[in-house]
């Protein structure tokens, strides 16, 4: 009572109760999702519930030692990120504080009560105006550009600013705070804009995804492709290579911008990303991959509320680059940790739980998030896309749990990681029988045109062989492989080749780590031609043992590790032809 009395005297908001990351304040006139400063140390928090005179706040920092009676200040603003030059190559925590700045401000460990702006406000950027005085600009229009890294950072009119005639605009060297353009209405524009993270940025229209996001991973591009602007989920039990797969995507996917969210994951793993990315080269530009990357690292032991926010911070940054007309791919590792953060906060709020203690709004939050992906016509009329690839970590590898199930209802691509495969060191450990891609139809034309009219047929053939193998393996388990009819023994051998040559890919080999579509096509085609030879030979009376004993096919796996593979592939093909001819003539 005492506190409420004190508050009533007009001394502003006051803390009433503290229980971990969730605190209760009284007497602040706040709106939902307003950002507030909690306690004498002004810890950052966000309003998540309002009940009478009480406001429930989730705090993004550790609340130890905070007492009832300490002040709470409402900023009246929603949680927003700063968008502008300086984003690329940055490494942020869940609420866009640059980790490098935090190290210089408070040392090797993350302390609380330190704020740091997302962008460097002092640094000067070379701004080049692209519109002239008297031009009319609309919300989302491009008014100029900055060469940020090797990426051109286009400067946009914020979508929430009414357009108008340009009164003045100047090129030159400016900080992101300086006004570079004024409109007739008197509005001054800078190179920076702020956007609330929980609100999707507007677009002109959403378009159908018809272009694949090429990742250089054979099982993904070849069998289960994701479209630019599409959504995919990678659920996998621990140790099945989920993180390596995510990192491979971040490294090699042909998006122009990559946003990588380490949400509740391992510190050492983030360090690996942080040390590896700056050294890796972009296969297209030869520049460090880091130059097109924004990293968000909120490790598992960093505050749970900031983990909840990290996913929104990431997707807002991704949308911002999309609005410039770029293809962006966003990796979230792992959305299960995000869901768990929601669960933890929900349980502190004493909300009625849904399935397995997760809040009833879990499904809604997940679908809202994935729906922010898409290929769009931006406000400025360009094409841009955000592809979202979310990792899911199902407890006990049980795919029937709520996060996996709710995710699968939304996403179009499912890459099922399999611990059994990783145990036998089959990498990437993506199960070819359980995975699927619903983009095959929309991408059909692209593969026809860009790869080969044969490709879609080859793909279907490979899937059929693998499916057949699975059925045959069940019989083999019972009676042994010798008991199979001869033609099916050949099928088993062909399937083995598809698995070991095409599907297995070594992420740590400098060549094999990235395999373009034409090489994929050549590899699959060679396996197909082996199969055609083999079936014909078998019909002609060659025994399966002889076919399996073909020497030249043993050299085929080496193709993966050779950069200029075509001469060697030709040699193997010729050797294979002559071996088959010899076998058939000996019958």
């Amino acid at each position: 009572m005492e506190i409420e009395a004190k508050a009533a005297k007009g001394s502003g908001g006051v803390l009433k109760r503290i229980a971990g990351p969730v605190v209760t304040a009284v007497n602040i006139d706040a709106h939902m999702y307003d950002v507030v400063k909690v306690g004498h140390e002004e810890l950052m928090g966000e309003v998540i519930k309002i009940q009478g005179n009480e406001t429930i706040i989730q705090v993004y920092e550790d609340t130890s030692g905070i007492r009832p009676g300490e002040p709470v200040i409402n900023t009246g603003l929603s949680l927003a990120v700063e968008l502008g030059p300086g984003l690329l190559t940055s490494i942020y925590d869940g609420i866009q504080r640059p980790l490098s700045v935090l190290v210089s401000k408070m040392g090797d460990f993350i302390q609380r009560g330190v704020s740091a702006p997302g962008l460097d406000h002092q640094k000067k950027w070379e701004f080049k105006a692209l519109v002239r005085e008297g031009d009319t600009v609309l919300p989302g229009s491009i008014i100029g550009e900055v060469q940020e890294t090797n990426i051109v950072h286009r400067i946009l009119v914020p979508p929430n600013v009414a357009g108008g005639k340009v009164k003045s605009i100047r090129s030159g060297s400016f900080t992101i705070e300086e006004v570079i353009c004024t409109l007739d209405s008197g509005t001054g524009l800078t190179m920076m804009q702020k956007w609330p993270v929980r609100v999707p940025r507007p677009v002109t229209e959403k378009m159908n995804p018809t272009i694949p996001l090429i990742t250089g991973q054979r099982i993904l591009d070849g069998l289960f492709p994701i479209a630019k602007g599409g959504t995919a989920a990678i659920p996998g039990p621990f140790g099945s290579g989920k993180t390596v797969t995510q990192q491979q995507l971040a490294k090699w996917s042909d998006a122009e911008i990559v946003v990588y969210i380490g949400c509740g994951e391992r510190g050492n793993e983030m360090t690996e990303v942080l040390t590896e990315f700056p050294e890796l080269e972009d296969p297209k530009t030869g520049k460090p991959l880091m130059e097109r990357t924004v990293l968000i690292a909120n490790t598992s032991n960093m505050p749970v509320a900031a983990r909840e926010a990290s996913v929104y911070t990431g997707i807002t940054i991704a949308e911002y680059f999309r609005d410039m007309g770029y293809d962006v791919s966003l990796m979230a590792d792992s959305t299960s940790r995000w869901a768990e953060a929601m669960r933890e906060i929900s349980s502190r709020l004493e909300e009625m739980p849904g399935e397995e203690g997760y809040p009833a709004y879990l499904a809604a939050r997940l679908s809202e998030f994935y729906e922010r992906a898409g290929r769009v016509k931006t406000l400025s009329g360009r094409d841009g896309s955000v592809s979202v690839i979310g990792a899911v970590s199902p407890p006990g590898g049980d795919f029937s749990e709520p996060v996996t199930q709710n995710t699968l209802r939304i996403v179009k691509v499912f890459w099922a990681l399999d611990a059994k495969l990783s145990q036998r060191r089959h990498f990437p450990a993506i199960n070819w029988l359980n995975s699927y891609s619903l983009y095959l139809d929309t991408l059909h034309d692209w593969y026809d045109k860009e790869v080969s009219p044969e490709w879609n047929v080859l793909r279907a053939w490979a899937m059929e062989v693998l499916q057949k193998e699975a059925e045959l393996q069940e019989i083999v388990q019972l009676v042994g492989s010798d008991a199979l009819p001869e033609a099916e023994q050949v099928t088993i051998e062909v399937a083995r080749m598809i698995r070991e040559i095409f599907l297995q890919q070594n992420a740590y080999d400098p060549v094999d780590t990235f395999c373009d579509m034409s090489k994929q096509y050549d590899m699959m085609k060679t396996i197909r031609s082996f199969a055609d030879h083999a079936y014909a030979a078998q019909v002609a009376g060659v025994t399966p043992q002889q076919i399996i004993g073909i020497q030249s096919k043993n050299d085929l796996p080496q193709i993966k590790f050779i950069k200029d593979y075509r001469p060697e592939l030709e040699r193997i093909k010729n050797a294979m032809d002559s071996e088959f001819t010899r076998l058939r003539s000996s019958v």
Partner: protein
Amino acid sequence: MKEYRTISKIAGPLVFVEKTEPVGYGELVNLALFDGSIKRGQVLDTSDQLVVVQVFETTAGIGKDTGVRFLGETIKMPVGREMLGRILSGGGKPIDGGPEIVPEKRLDITGAAINPYARASPEEFIQTGISTIDGTNTLVRGQKLPIFSGAGLPHNNIALQIARQAKALGSKEEFAVVFAAMGITKEEANHFMQDFERTGALERAVVFLNLADDPAVERIITPRLALTTAEYLAFDLGMHVLVILTDMTNYCEALRQIGAAREEVPGRRGYPGYMYTDLASIYERAGIIKGKKGSITQFPILTMPGDDITHPIPDLTGYITEGQIVVSRDLHRKGIYPPVNVLPSLSRLMNLGIGKEHTREDHKKVSDQLYAAYAEGNDLRGLVAIVGKDALSERDRMFLEFADLFENRFVRQGYNEDRTIFGTLDLGWDLLSALPVEQLVRIDRDLINKYHPKFRQQDAKAQG
């Protein structure tokens, strides 16, 4: 400091105190009993009306007449160089009859998260002398690698063997060991202590003992005290520290007990929904910091209830730690020590710590090949049970025999046998030479030519 006698409710380890001055969240609490003894606790929930205190010991003897004092600070651990060689209780009090520890520093036991940007990537190979770890699940400095075991399996011996033998390659520098026991029996604790004393490891060890009959709630702070000490030794004094936490299952049980007493909404199998975050705040306190000399390597041990790896405790642990060493009951029954089943075992940081610069160029390929061949042989055992050995092809029979060979020669080793990594790799090659060369599809030709025993001999002959 004001003393309150306003306890309104006592439930399990929780004490509810009414109408206090503002009390900080997480603050340390002293409870003075009528007999003059003092119990300690911590604030879990605070408001102007009611403060919830979690008591670290049993609540026996606490009543409405108990005096409650709030100490105005969160739990701090006095740390100092003198701690090496000392045995402390699970609450951090010396129990070896020695003097109180003279603190050089008092540190908050919650420990702040290491800024990922300040971490250095762990990549220094640690040789444990155990083939199944060094060869196929390599440990590196700064890693957290738990042992997933079951009741009645020799995980303690494996942990001891690692603590005794672990060293960085080419360095004589020994690890300082911080050992935290949570809810283990006196007998198990003695086993550890005797081994530490026998090998002289105790001199460079700090031991925290919360035994099975000590208060369960105390287990919540034991690992945090241990890790705070480890951080001091590593990052202030520059030592390489190996932290052994046993048994994390007991820790999680204590966590569940408190959750139930607070009437929280439970998550899977009754464990609190925040268990992942809580465990992360322990396991993530491992690693290396840029520009600092020391390191913290963690070996948490847990027993999987019912040998079930999908149980929430091993499951959540596996999502935080960098791999796991799985101890197998089948291998143990076969009389194989250490009964490490390499198939579900994994070291996520292995690739950082092996190869030309760290161990030997053929390490990864040999390991992959051993895995693949053993997995194949192991699968065939199921088939043999149905169709009999005679129905197998000659190739399959070789893989089947390889699986036995692998278990008997590679996995099996003595409790005091300290194999070098080169010995382990050569042993791997010896085993692989039982298979036809063309079956070694995971290894490049030039490595085969260089290391395969058959070609090595030819080489030697040619040179001879």
